[in-house]
């Protein structure tokens, strides 16, 4: 059974590409266009990794992260920010919140896969 990754991004075209890469590399992908949709998915499934954008209307990535961490069941799920906010302060701020990794757009697929595998620690596609 391959690892399940939840991806959240308000840009559907971008989301579709991430989904494609991860699927092609053998992961199960759950995708959501906004925070509420993602939270609804999390009620039914516990993924092995969460990747989220930050700048989104209605619920931004910071709020989504805090909502996720408030759920004890999801406390240990690795969380990665994938954002266009690439300034040093933004990255520092994100990491201070307690996320496991911070990726920036524009994104090289290679970087995404390395980060994902690092967090999944051998339970992912490479193991297979």
């Amino acid at each position: 059974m391959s690892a399940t990754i939840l991806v959240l991004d308000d840009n559907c075209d971008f989301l579709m590409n991430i989904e494609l890469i991860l699927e092609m590399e053998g992961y199960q992908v759950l995708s959501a266009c906004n925070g509420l949709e993602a939270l609804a998915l999390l009620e039914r499934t516990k993924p092995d990794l969460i990747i989220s954008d930050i700048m989104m209307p209605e619920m931004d990535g910071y709020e989504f992260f805090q909502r996720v961490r408030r759920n004890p069941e999801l406390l240990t799920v690795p969380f990665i920010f994938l954002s266009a906010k690439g300034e040093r302060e933004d990255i520092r701020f994100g990491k201070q919140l307690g996320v496991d990794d911070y990726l920036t757009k524009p994104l090289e697929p290679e970087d995404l896969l390395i980060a994902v595998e690092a967090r999944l620690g051998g339970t992912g596609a490479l193991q297979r």
Partner: protein
Amino acid sequence: MAADKDRCWTRQLAALNTIAVTMSQSLELEHIIQVALAEIMRALEIEFGWVYLLEGERLALKCHIGLSDEFVNQNRELELAPWTTQKTLVRERLDEEPREIDEQSKREGIQARISIPLNKENFMGCLTLASRALDRFGASEVQFIETVGHQLSLAIENARLLASARGQENGLTRAYQQAGRYAKDLRQVFERERIQSSQLAALNAVIAAVSESLELNTILREALDKVMEVMRVEAGMVLLVNERGELIPVIHRGLPREMIETSPPMKIGEGLSGRVVQSGRPMVIDDISILEDVNSSRKEGFKAWVSVPLTAKDRVLGTLNISTREERSFSPQDVQLLGSIGSQLGVAIENARLYEAIEEYSRTLEEKVALRTRDLAEEKSKLDAILHNIADGLLVVDTRGRLILANPMAARMLGFKLEEAIGYEIEEALPLPMGNFLSNLVHQPGPASAVTLEIPDLAQINPARCWKQKNCQQTACPAYGKTEARCWFISGIRCSPTDLAAAAPSTSPSTGSAARPAKLLRTGSRNKPRLVPRKPSTKMQDWVQIDCPFYSGLPRLSIEARASTVEDERGEVLGTVIVMRDITALKEMDRLKTQFVSNVSHELRTPITIIKLTVSNLLQYYARLDDQKRTELLETVKRQADILHRLIENILTLSRLDAGKVFLRKAEFDLAAFCRTLLSEFALAAAEKHISLIDDGLQEGTTVWADQEQIGQVIRNLLSNALKFTSAGGKVTVTVRSRGEDEGLVEMQVSDTGSGISPRDQAHLFERFYRGEATARGIPGTGLGLAIVKEIIEEHGGSVSVESEVGVGSTFTVLLPAKKPEDTFQSL
């Protein structure tokens, strides 16, 4: 004895006449005095005479006849002694009461002496006559001398009058008043002394009348009455030469009115008076009938006539005529007296004319002064109005650093009260540390220097909130722990620490250039140390800007203060003018532009990133992807390329609009059908966001007269906004309908059920770069779309407006002309 007396009288009259003539011909005082002295001495057969005039506190010897050089040298100046200032002093026998001055006089051989004061309103000097003979000065001599004295006084006064008239216009008015007083004095003298000689009295009366008034008609009337009375004639007249050289009767007595009114103006050389004017000599006619050209008086029965010229400074101004019906032969004495009176009247006429001219001049001058005063007052009120109403704050500081002028705008900007600040040194007058900044500015040498102050906008801050925030734990705040202190940022110092740091001495010099407003103050070694504000720590600076919630929430005002030195025309420094301009809007514009650049690069990067990623995925996984997935990816590329294209179009349109290079290629097209096409472009994006696009309200066949490409950009911008701000499950509706034939307008509306726009944002919605709350909410965009919509629609002569409610949605309404206008010029 009688013959002696007659001879004596004739001499005296001749002397007076000569003096009067001299006075009328010369304005040179010393000359007049010299002549008067010589004449009086000759008339009275006296050996010595001298005149002292008052110069400051001393009497100066102005003129003397018969005195030895020794006497003159010893008495060139006299102290002002009581005896010199009083009344007439007659000393018939000096040896009876010898005094020091008398010793000297006796050495000259003087036995009898008379001194009379030259008096008008004030003592002006004295006239002294002396003789080697005893008992020389009897009552008649004294009277004569006094008359001359009065004349001399008049001459002195006239000379001074002229001097003052040349300088000051009201001198004459004073002289006029003095002359009046003088005449009164004269009359009193005559009454007191009970003059024997009625002829001399007449002359004196004429002089008195002349001195009493400067009004020409009054003078002439009084003079004529006196002359007729003395001469015992029943008729008389005064004629004056006018500017056309004609003799005009001015005053007449005892002559029938018709005689005066019917006779034509007399020419010079014609008739009695004309001949007198021409010759300048008196004429005595015992029987007028000898003159063939004089008919009127013959008809009226006048027989004997005397006509004397009225002369002043060699010019004949007119004639004084007297006449009688009696058989009469006028004596040479009569003629001589009349001649004297004529000379006196000449002077009087000249004086009166001078007075009139000066009065006129004075009146004009007064009018000019009044006018100028009014101009100045107007100028000042204009300046005040300007100072009160200009949008810039203005401070004027003198060379000692004191605030001498400030306008209400300056007070409003910096938060001080005008009445509490004017007159104080600028550091004290203005709230700290503004006073320090501006004081530094004032002390800078050089033509212009500038500083930008960023201060809380006092107009928007409630003063009640200006007290120290309760429970504020910011230890770096200078107000921390001080119970009496107000919050440092607002009322204590009212300035941001950034500016404080900017004012610190370590900063580099800056010249005030408009392009880069100097935020830094120049501080030279010339500055007194106390002018330099303390430098706060950098740490505090960081803390304040980022962390202090109170401070960061304050509305700000950016003020550019610019100082320039005021110099007068000689280059002397008078002070410094500081002009303070509110550049908040410029700063905001600057900030928006910076924000725009960052937004645009983000907006450009996003589609490019996606295109790159998609293409790289296609290449990477091409073999493993089915056809459907490949198409999907290619469509993604196309969609993102469209977004990119739209964005670049927007930017280009904006710059074309700026450059005025938008040329509308207008044509009539079906707006409803066009909208339907564009809606299909957005169908996929809407479906992905689960937003329904509703096109029921598109009234087919509704045409507009517009540039289709530009209108396409408008509709795309409105649709993409509607989709962007509407969340899943929402609706976006587009309607197009005609507003009726009358109005000739087509209305298009794009409505959404999105987040809505706050009233504050609505006000600025169509401004370039303005994004309102969208920035804070993390919604991507450039702030260009609606600005372009508005500008394009307005280019078309249409309009765009918005109605919105937060949480309910927004409706954008566009109005466009339906048809090509009748006037073909407009459609070009």
